[in-house]
């Protein structure tokens, strides 16, 4: 006696899970999405959420925001490749990385205010663990460049105690893990031209115009 229809194994594998659990979108139907959100909250409460991240749409593109329990650890432009940035965070900070927007809410609010021209100074705890040595010194000096003003690479080199290290200042800016909040966009060439930017020169121009208009 043989079963006339499809094998029950095929039924289980194919039909059953597919129309109940999966959507065309991703294997996260509503139920799975909700489970993942719940997991992120539980992980945070259990002290297991070493790095929380979310993305934020802004006039300079979709920014990746990532924070440890100590503070904001990374902001990344799309051109940096968010997946690659998250992988680097997993290797250098902790692999316990989860999408969990709640921790980034204050960051998102302040960035929204900034892009609306309503905020000139960020008041956020920063976790600078991705930067060391001279680069960290440079970034500390960048925070001192006031909103709406610029400084030259050479001037920052002098301020950082290495007058001949303008090129190294450029590298520090290019590898700034916290662009926008640590304002490397306010560093320009001595001749007044913009110079490079981690988010692309257009983004740099846009930020400087925004600040000039406010």
């Amino acid at each position: 006696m043989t079963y006339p229809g499809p094998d029950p194994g095929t039924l289980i594998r194919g039909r059953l899970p597919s129309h109940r659990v999966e959507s065309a979108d991703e294997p996260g139907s509503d139920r799975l999405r909700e489970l993942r959100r719940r997991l992120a909250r539980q992980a945070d409460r259990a002290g297991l959420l070493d790095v929380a991240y979310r993305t934020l749409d802004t006039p300079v593109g979709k920014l990746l925001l990532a924070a440890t329990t100590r503070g904001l650890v990374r902001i990344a432009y799309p051109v940096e490749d968010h997946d690659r940035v998250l992988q680097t965070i997993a290797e250098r900070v902790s692999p316990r990385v989860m999408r969990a927007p709640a921790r980034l809410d204050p960051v998102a609010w302040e960035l929204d205010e900034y892009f609306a021209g309503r905020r000139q100074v960020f008041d956020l705890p920063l976790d600078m663990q991705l930067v060391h040595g001279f680069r960290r010194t440079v970034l500390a000096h960048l925070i001192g460049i006031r909103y709406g003003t610029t400084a030259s690479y050479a001037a920052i080199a002098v301020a950082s105690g290495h007058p001949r290290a303008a090129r190294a200042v450029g590298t520090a800016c290019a590898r700034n893990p916290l662009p926008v909040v640590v304002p490397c966009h306010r560093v320009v060439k001595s001749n007044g031209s913009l110079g490079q930017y981690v988010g692309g020169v257009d983004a740099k121009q846009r930020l400087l115009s925004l600040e000039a208009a406010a």
Partner: protein
Amino acid sequence: MPLQPFERVVEEHGAIVWRVCRAIAGPNDADDVWSETFLAALRAYPTLRPGSDVRAWLITIAQRKAIDRYRAALRTPVPVAVLPEVTESGQAGAADGHDDELWEAVRRLPPKQRSAVAYRYLADLPYREIGELMGISEAAARRNAADGVAALRATYQAADEASCQQGSSP
């Protein structure tokens, strides 16, 4: 290869682990067992050897969590505000529509057959791994899955014939 961000692990394996949870813990407990599984996995994740079979690792945890829950349920009767409906088979039914029948049949399988069927057809694991997960030989895993499918086939055939007779009666 270094460990991926944990979010990737959830993204890649979340659905399959949920199906396995559902098969071994039942529809009512699947969500909780899923959460407990991934929370435990997140806790241990930094110590996981890079290059490990992450899916098999997760399923091992899910299996343990399902057993824990089963044991806890035996110890503690859960007070409920509204008694769940009881189906003809005497088991509480999940409000899940027309898949109930098949899940019910999967759930009624003997534990080893149920696990073997779940690992084979929900998680797509090779029999060698299934044997390791269940602590039995590869051949025994293969037999358990085959017997489980044969039992499901019998159940389904019976259900099908019943519905055909109903449908075709003049």
